């Protein structure tokens, strides 16, 4: 009977395409909006995932997320280094500084100051130059996207020329020379990232009593990370998180205190509702149109179980096709949006979530049809 069910489904081209389009649209909207949401959220902690070497991030207890810098006294670094189980600890400066561009415009930059001796906390990928070039006088490394876009030089004719090695810019009235171009995860606010040494960053930064943003630490081999974090907290009174914990802290902040989840959630819910409405209604109409034939099958000896399986097969078939097309379109959208300002990430969880939602739409749509067919009196076949 599967053959009959499928031929009934695809034979009515208009309705078949209508159902598939509805599910494709729902699937596309669910995948695309969730993908952008995940992409955007990933940018909030991109700096943490880019900085892979340290196990432990030490900071003020009141810090709520990675950009919420509450500076520490420089002496805290030595206290952390003295905690049992800590192999090494280095300082990190992170702050927003104004860069003055060639054409006189200003641009806020995310300046990261790395430990002068080890340069730990540097960018994950160098596109041009090397990390050690930071040791050159006034050296800074600029991220590729920033160099090509917001920090690009504007020629008199209006053309933009990417910032290159050897170019200079002013950071808070201090001269900085580009010695390298790196690739990093885009930040949530899309500001260019500028890496330099810790000591130089503290010169660039406005005068403050405390300038140490974070202490990056590594636990000794075999040490339990959580235990070391607790020990640092107990000894210094500072908050110490593993990288995953800090990622979660950051994510939780954005989820709780920004309207992003609600806005994207609404889009996702809207996609789900519209998909359910279009696909559900068309599928129900399809069943209504075929009620006479379901009645005929019932009269000819097809039980409710058989008819139910036919409807479920029809629903799952259009669901699978709609899901495939929708996810495929979302992937194409993602590929087209790569290397642009648009955040888009498609982890397997999003695909699973969309599959679940499409399945739910199919189940919801077919339930109405199943109800109608189960209640169908086979005697309908004798009504002309």
């Amino acid at each position: 009977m599967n053959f009959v069910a499928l031929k009934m489904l695809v034979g009515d081209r208009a309705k078949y395409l209508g159902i598939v389009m509805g599910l494709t649209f729902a699937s596309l909207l669910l995948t695309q909006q969730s993908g952008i949401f995940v992409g955007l959220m990933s940018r909030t902690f991109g700096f943490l995932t880019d900085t892979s070497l340290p196990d432990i991030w030490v900071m003020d207890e009141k810090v709520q997320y990675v950009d919420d810098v509450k500076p520490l006294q420089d002496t805290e670094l030595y206290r952390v280094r003295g905690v049992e189980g800590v192999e090494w600890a280095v300082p990190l400066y992170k702050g927003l500084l104004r860069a003055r561009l060639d054409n006189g415009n200003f641009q806020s930059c995310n300046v990261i100051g790395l430990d002068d001796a080890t340069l730990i906390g540097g960018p994950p990928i160098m596109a041009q130059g090397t990390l050690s070039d930071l040791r050159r006088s006034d050296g800074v490394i600029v991220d590729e996207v920033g160099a090509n876009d917001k920090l690009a030089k504007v020629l008199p004719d209006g053309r933009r020329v990417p910032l290159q090695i050897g170019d200079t810019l002013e950071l808070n009235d201090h001269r900085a020379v580009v010695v390298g171009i790196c690739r990093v995860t885009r930040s949530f606010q899309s500001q260019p990232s500028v890496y330099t040494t810790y000591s130089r960053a503290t010169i660039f930064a406005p005068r403050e009593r405390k300038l140490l943003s974070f202490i990056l630490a590594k636990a000794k081999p075999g040490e339990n990370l959580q235990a070391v974090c607790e020990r640092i907290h107990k000894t210094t009174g500072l908050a110490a998180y593993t990288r995953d914990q800090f990622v979660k802290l950051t994510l939780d902040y954005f989820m709780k205190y920004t309207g992003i989840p609600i806005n994207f959630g609404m889009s996702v819910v809207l996609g789900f509702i519209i998909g359910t409405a279009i696909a559900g209604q068309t599928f129900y109409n399809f069943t209504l149109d075929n009620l006479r034939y379901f009645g005929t099958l019932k009269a000819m000896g097809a039980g409710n179980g058989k008819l139910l399986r036919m409807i479920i097969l029809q629903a799952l078939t259009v669901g699978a096709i709609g899901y495939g097309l929708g996810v495929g379109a979302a992937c194409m959208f993602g590929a087209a949006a790569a290397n642009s300002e648009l955040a888009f990430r498609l982890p397997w969880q999003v695909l699973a979530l969309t599959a679940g939602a499409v399945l739910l739409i199919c189940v919801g749509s077919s339930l109405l049809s199943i109800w109608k067919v189960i209640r169908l009196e086979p005697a309908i076949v004798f009504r002309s």
Partner: protein
Amino acid sequence: MRSSQELKKLNMNIPNQNDVAVKCTGLRKTFGEGAAAVRALRGIDLEVRPGELMMLVGPSGCGKTTLISIIAGILDQSDGECVVFGHDFRRMSQSEKTRYRGESIGFVFQAYNLIPTLTAAENVSVPLLVRGENRRKANDRSREVLQQVGFNERMMLSLPTQLSGGQQQRVAIARALVHNPKLIVCDEPTSALDHETGQSVMDLLRSVALQGSRALIVVTHDARIFGFGDRIAKLDDGHVERIVNSAAELNGNRK
């Protein structure tokens, strides 16, 4: 739940069942309740013999369709007894009735009820697929039966919309025959057809469908085909008014 084998055994245990294909005694059917109740059948007594073509005739609303719906096991009576080849549907569960219909009853409908997206051959194979037979066997059997009703290869692969009304009714007859049912019920099989096509459809029903102990019940108000019946039961207002042996007798009495 009884298996089809058990049903067959049950069937065999009933004495003299071959003498009567369908026996209705005091059959009543009321739709709705209270003041809005409609009494469609008011005590029908009717017997249909194996190998017989019984015509059920009468004006619209006299209960013909309700009666064949009960005989075919797709509608439950309110009162009375209806035994089909020894089976009393009231003593069978819903799933047993469904299975029995699939095995023993064939249907021919006024509007043909062919699934429009299936070819003629595929439509004819549906009763076999419902019974769980594999597609290849069902397809072979459906082609065999379609040949019996005069279809060639090209017509077998046509969709219902590509066939004339008479051809569609032939497909419907082939579908009713494909699983060798004991009883075939036909509801107004010629009402959508012109006189000539109607006659040829009835010829086909008599020559191909009416074989062995198979019984045929044809509901119609088309007086031109009354002559095809072995007996004609005239219904009026939910009763069997009379049963005659020929159209002439029916017309004669009317005069």
